[in-house]
């Protein structure tokens, strides 16, 4: 079903706001944003580390699926993956090609997985946010 609004743990929402508002992350945290409707097969995603208090690395991974309950696939980055390891911004592009392999571009819905890696000092944390995802159709 396209762009369904539902209650519970699978809310498909618009993407006009930030994908993730300012959020404190510590070592071992894993979180997922809500699913949101896709408005193009390509994605431009930007994240910001607002505060870095001894943190290691935050890995941000887009995931996509067809309909609710269908297979969830990690979207393949075009070039470098989206990683925050110091204060500032990072960007990544996820451009669809004509391959039909899963993970090549966005399907009907997208969400973002935020996880940590690397070495984190005891009690360290980062405050991060994800800017609104920019979605558009591929040119080639």
């Amino acid at each position: 079903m396209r762009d369904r609004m539902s209650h519970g743990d699978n809310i498909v929402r618009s993407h006009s706001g930030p994908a993730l508002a300012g959020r404190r992350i510590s070592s071992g945290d894993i979180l997922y944003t809500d699913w949101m409707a896709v408005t193009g097969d390509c994605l431009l995603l930007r994240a910001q580390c607002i505060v870095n208090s001894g943190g290691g690395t935050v890995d941000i991974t887009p995931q996509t699926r067809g309909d609710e309950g269908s297979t969830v696939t990690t979207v393949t980055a075009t070039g470098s993956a989206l990683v925050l390891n110091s204060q500032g911004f990072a960007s990544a592009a996820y451009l669809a090609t004509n391959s039909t392999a899963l993970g090549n571009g966005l399907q009907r819905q997208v969400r973002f997985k935020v996880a940590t890696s690397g070495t984190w000092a005891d009690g360290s944390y980062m405050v991060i946010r994800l800017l609104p995802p920019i979605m558009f159709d591929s040119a080639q």
Partner: protein
Amino acid sequence: MYPFFEVVPLGSTAKSILLPWMPTAADNAFLSYEVATSFFESGGSLTVVAYTKNRSDPGSEGTAFSSFAQIGSTGIYDKKCENLKELIRFKITVTPGGGSEPVVTQGAFMRFLPPNWYETA
């Protein structure tokens, strides 16, 4: 988002054109454009500059943001633009290169992607 359009150097010297002003939606933005395909002889180029100003400010330009940077190996170029005023616009400059190909065979297909607006944290 603008659809794709073609930019071609008309003549042997650089040409520039300003796109219309549009209102800003936040204090800051990542502005980006995509070059789908291009061909320039040696020395030729396509450059983009963004400008911001308030409605009450005189002039066709304003504070400039230049040096858009390529994201990896993609055809997408972006620029972090902070402390935006009320309006932004783009200026596109196409410079033909010197070589055996006629000037009109040089140029690019490009489009502007939606701005990534954000407020200062």
